[in-house]
């Protein structure tokens, strides 16, 4: 296996609010290798964005705090690293693209100004060199008239162009890891296709590892190598993109995939998971998904399931995959498969 870039080990990020402690990320372990694209999927409130912010040490503190676990970036634990060291890592070795290209650029500065700032913080080059490097970066991400756009302000660009600028900025220091938090959610499908195409090229050419956070399984199929499914602050399933989309094991992933309207098939009625996504709460016992799960049995409400290994690197947090459940596992295989 290629070398490990990022390893989250039982990461716990909790928020301390007036109404109590909220375990937004509740023991998440994820590995990202060099040149790999890993997707984190889940619905709103499952903790996928907080996971990515934790890696960058950007969780607003207070109320949020990493209360346990490790974030190993190339062998260095980022939890409790000094802010000075984090500043060196952020934007240089790990970059991040946010969902809203509209709000992540400063409206008062030109595109060039903001790109140059990012470049000059991490590289010792003069202003003129930084400018020409910024123009190069804009060309790489496919912005027409790059030498004119560099002197324009964010409001003069469209959403797709702004997201390209964000990618240019994120890639300008050749990071080893790019974290993209819903990079195409605010964009139209034709523009989304352009941006995904661009990210795939950057991944191919520069071998940058990408951690992609999304709720769109279509985007996952498009670009990811491996997928982690999250539910209520926990990883519930992990596997390759093909395994997850074609043969999901956990009842939640199964339901999620079945409830998507398909563009190439006709069906009378959509499958739907009953109930709604629960809010994370402290001291909850049992499987988080059990109240909505059609396969739930007594044990699901009494004990916390662990991530059971089905095959190599194929994990599912469901008692149905516990060897101890013997018969039930076989029945479930038959049932869930149907």
């Amino acid at each position: 296996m290629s070398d490990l870039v990022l390893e989250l080990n039982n990461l716990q990020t909790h928020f301390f609010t007036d109404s109590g402690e909220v375990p937004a990320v509740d023991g998440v372990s994820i590995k990202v290798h060099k040149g790999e694209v890993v997707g984190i999927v889940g619905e709103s409130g499952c903790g996928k964005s907080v996971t990515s912010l934790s890696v960058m040490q950007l969780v607003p503190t207070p109320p949020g705090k990493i209360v346990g676990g490790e974030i190993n970036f190339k062998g260095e634990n980022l939890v409790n690293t000094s802010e000075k060291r984090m500043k060196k890592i952020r934007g240089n070795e790990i970059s991040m693209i946010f969902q809203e290209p509209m709000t992540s650029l400063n409206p008062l500065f030109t595109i060039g100004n903001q790109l140059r700032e990012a470049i000059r913080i991490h590289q010792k080059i003069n202003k003129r060199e930084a400018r020409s490097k910024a123009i190069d970066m804009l060309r790489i991400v496919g912005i027409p008239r790059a030498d004119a756009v560099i002197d324009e302000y964010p409001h003069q660009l469209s959403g797709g162009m702004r997201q390209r600028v964000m990618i240019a900025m994120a890639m300008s220091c050749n990071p080893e890891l790019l974290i993209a938090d819903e990079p195409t959610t605010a964009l139209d499908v034709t523009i989304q296709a352009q941006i995904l195409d661009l990210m795939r090229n950057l991944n191919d050419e520069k071998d940058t590892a990408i951690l992609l956070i999304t709720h769109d399984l279509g985007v996952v199929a498009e670009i990811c190598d491996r997928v982690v499914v999250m539910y209520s602050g926990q990883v519930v399933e992990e596997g390759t993109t093909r395994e997850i989309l074609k043969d999901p094991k956990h009842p939640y992933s199964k339901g999620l995939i079945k409830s998507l309207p398909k563009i190439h098939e006709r069906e009378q009625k959509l499958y739907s998971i009953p109930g709604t996504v629960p809010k994370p709460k402290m001291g909850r016992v049992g499987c988080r998904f059990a109240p909505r799960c059609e396969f739930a049995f007594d044990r699901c409400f009494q004990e916390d399931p662990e991530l059971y290994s089905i095959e190599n690197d194929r994990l599912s947090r469901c008692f149905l995959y516990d060897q101890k459940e013997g018969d039930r596992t076989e029945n479930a295989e038959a049932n869930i498969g149907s």
Partner: protein
Amino acid sequence: MQKPILEVSGLKKYFEIKGGVFGKKVGEVKAVDGISFSVMEGEILGIVGESGCGKSTAGKSILRLIEPSAGEVKFENKDITNLSAEEMRKLRRNMQIIFQDPYASLNPRHTVEKIIGEPLQIHGMSSAKERKERVKELLEVVGLSAYHASRYPHQFSGGQRQRIGIARALANNPKLIICDEPVSALDVSVQSQILNLMEELRDEFNLTYVFIAHDLSVVKHISDRVGVMYLGRMVELTDKDKLYDDPKHPYTQALLSAVPLPDPDIAKDRIILKGDVPSPSNPPAGCAFHTRCPHAMDICSKVRPEFEEIEDNHFVACHLYGEVQ
């Protein structure tokens, strides 16, 4: 043949841009630039397009929530564009709308009972007791419980709020409901619940929907016919199967090929469009799509293509299929 419940012809909505010291008109945004279609009784017509293509403006102009600039809207064979405000108000009990944002479209200071009861009161149900009964009934129809009536919107999740929005639209037994992106703010697992609910309601109450959305898979799932809009114009309109299996307009083809599918086995020839959608305040001459079209010809930048029926029930606005090829 069913009879059309809604006929729209040449509908236009231009927004004025004012500027300068005296607030003079300096231009206009052609949000909807002459669209025509009809909706049959009991049908679900989907309208898709990217942001800024005018699909929401079209929906609101049909109900005259925004006053259209030109064109005709006929509801049950009656032209409604010239009705007085009072007549329009009476008519609106038959034409309702469901909005996109379930967080913004419900008044946070009113209880659910007041929210759903208000349209009942406006349209003549004066007895408070009757209203209370009807509200309970409606809540149960949309899958909530009667005891929810005394709660406030912030106590509900997004999916539940959208159910309240649907109950409010259903309150006066409308015939036509315009659904403006009703599921795009919802999570996948909740989205499918709402889509199923809307289909059940259609069958139960014989409703007609105009379903506006940007998600092509959702529109495919729920609609009978689908219209595609680009920059204020309708570029293609046909049965959903025909549209998805055999799209004619180059924009529809590109749009369909750009949808990422959650299936690693489908190999795709993706048509990646260059550039961005032009501004509707200064749309390109001729065919609005010619600046990004892979098949653009000379004529495309000069003459606006007519919206014509090239096959049975398959309307396309493109010179590739015109006589002047």
